[in-house]
């Protein structure tokens, strides 16, 4: 599934926010067609990592490259992005279709008028997330999960080469979540799409992704999903014990248990 082309590459990336070191010396590569899951406890810096890849925060040291160039540059390729926090104003005057189309703005012609092909793409994206019948509803009036799906469709509309997803399935109902993962697998297979995704659902992530990276400010482990989930390093990152038996997870406090102090 993986080939040698590096789509996202971080080398010793260190990020500070407000004088606080949030990410320290993060190094990993994502290869074309790869699906890398990022896990870690709350406040570990996962969102900050995604924002670094999108060029929304700068590293204070180290290097970040996306498609071989620093992110956020002029001619950088379109990346599909689903941010973690998203609150759509209840009165935003656009339909679901319009919002999904916004993901494609940079690919439109100079006058910015979407053609038939573009609308077709929007329809496809909406269908992939099961929202084709909501296309002309005002986006602000959707339920939380529905809005989440719209943002996914927007990301899919923006790029079929690289998706950066920050807790993409949060708020989705169970069938939708399963369909979404099935969709990602299909896209990776058919389009050699590359995916970096954050999730708290360790079980789902382990089942879906090729590689898992566990961080808590610094990288604790990077490797095959199965290995990671049973490694000691993940316990260290979360500072507690897991028990993955038959997909069920039991949680035992370790002595001196404390979250990412």
């Amino acid at each position: 599934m993986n080939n040698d082309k590096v789509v996202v590459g971080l080398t010793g990336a260190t990020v500070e926010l407000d004088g606080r070191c949030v990410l320290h010396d993060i190094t990993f590569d994502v290869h074309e067609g790869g699906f890398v899951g990022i896990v870690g406890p709350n406040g570990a810096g996962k969102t900050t990592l995604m924002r670094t890849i999108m060029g929304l925060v700068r590293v204070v040291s180290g290097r970040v490259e996306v498609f071989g160039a620093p992110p956020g540059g002029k001619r950088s390729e379109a990346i599909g992005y689903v941010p973690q926090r998203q609150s759509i104003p209840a009165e935003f005057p656009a339909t679901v279709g319009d919002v999904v189309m916004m993901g494609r703005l940079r690919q439109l012609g100079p006058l910015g008028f979407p053609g038939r092909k573009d609308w077709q793409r929007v329809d496809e994206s909406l269908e992939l997330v099961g929202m084709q019948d909501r296309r002309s509803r005002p986006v602000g009036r959707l339920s939380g999960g529905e809005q989440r799906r719209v943002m996914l469709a927007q990301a899919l509309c923006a790029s079929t080469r690289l998706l950066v997803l920050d807790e993409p399935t949060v708020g989705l109902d169970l069938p939708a979540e399963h369909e979404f993962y099935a969709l990602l697998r299909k896209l990776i297979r058919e389009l050699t799409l590359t995916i970096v995704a954050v999730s708290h659902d360790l079980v789902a992530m382990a089942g879906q992704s090729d590689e898992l990276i566990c961080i808590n400010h610094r990288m604790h482990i990077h490797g095959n999903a199965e290995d990671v989930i049973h490694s000691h390093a993940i316990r260290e990152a979360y500072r507690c014990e897991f028990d993955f038996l038959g997909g069920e997870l039991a949680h035992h406090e370790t002595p001196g248990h404390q979250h990412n102090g």
Partner: protein
Amino acid sequence: MFDFAFMQRALAAAVLVGLLCGVLGFFVVLRRLAFIGVGISHSAIGGVAIGILAGWNPLLTGAFFAIAVALGIAMVSQSDKISEDTVIGVFFSGSMALGVVLFSMKSGYQQDLFSYLFGNVLAISTTELVALGCISAAIMAIMLLTFKEHLLVAFDEEVAAAYGHKVLGLNVLLLVVLALTVVIGVRLVGLLLIQALLVVPAAIAALWALNFRWQVLVAALVGSLSGIVGLVMAYQFDIAAGGSIVMVAVALFFVTLVVHFIRRHFRVPPPVP
């Protein structure tokens, strides 16, 4: 009534300004910049005072100052610590204070600083009308070309930046275009008209909760319609023209509000999806 040349020009100016402000007003209301008109026009006062003291053309220095203030607003509000309206408020206060202080240092009898800036829709000359037309056309073209980008920035700055749009650049563009519209518009047709047409028609459109295409259209139509009806009423009832135009727009706003209220409480389904 329209056999007087000044009435013809006033009509043309009101319709033009109504269209232009309708389009820009959509973003003004969406981005909560309702006081950009008052803010920018009053900010020009500092520049006017500098111009008078330095012996330059106060109109030019005022306009430069207003555009510089717009750039300053875009820069300062980039840090998300304080919102755009607060930054406008600070620049507004600072520029007015500068104008007042500079002016208090000059002795002798002067025109009021504001009189340099304020115009009247009845007093627009043919040259000015042509200039207004050209500038309106240029601004409309710019805004229509970058409309979707501005909409995305209004939707979510973070997502816009992630998709590689120059958020700062777009914000600067919007504020400079607004500053230009305000300084020119205030000079030609008056503050009352510009400020009201930037807010009221777009607020009416927002109350209908329509898609942005309809909102822009409704705002532009309400703006220019108010201009026509207001001018006719001003002539008929012998009242101030600018005030009359604004009153028509505000009356439409309250009608919309009542309709909106009735629709809500008697549950008539909305007209447009």
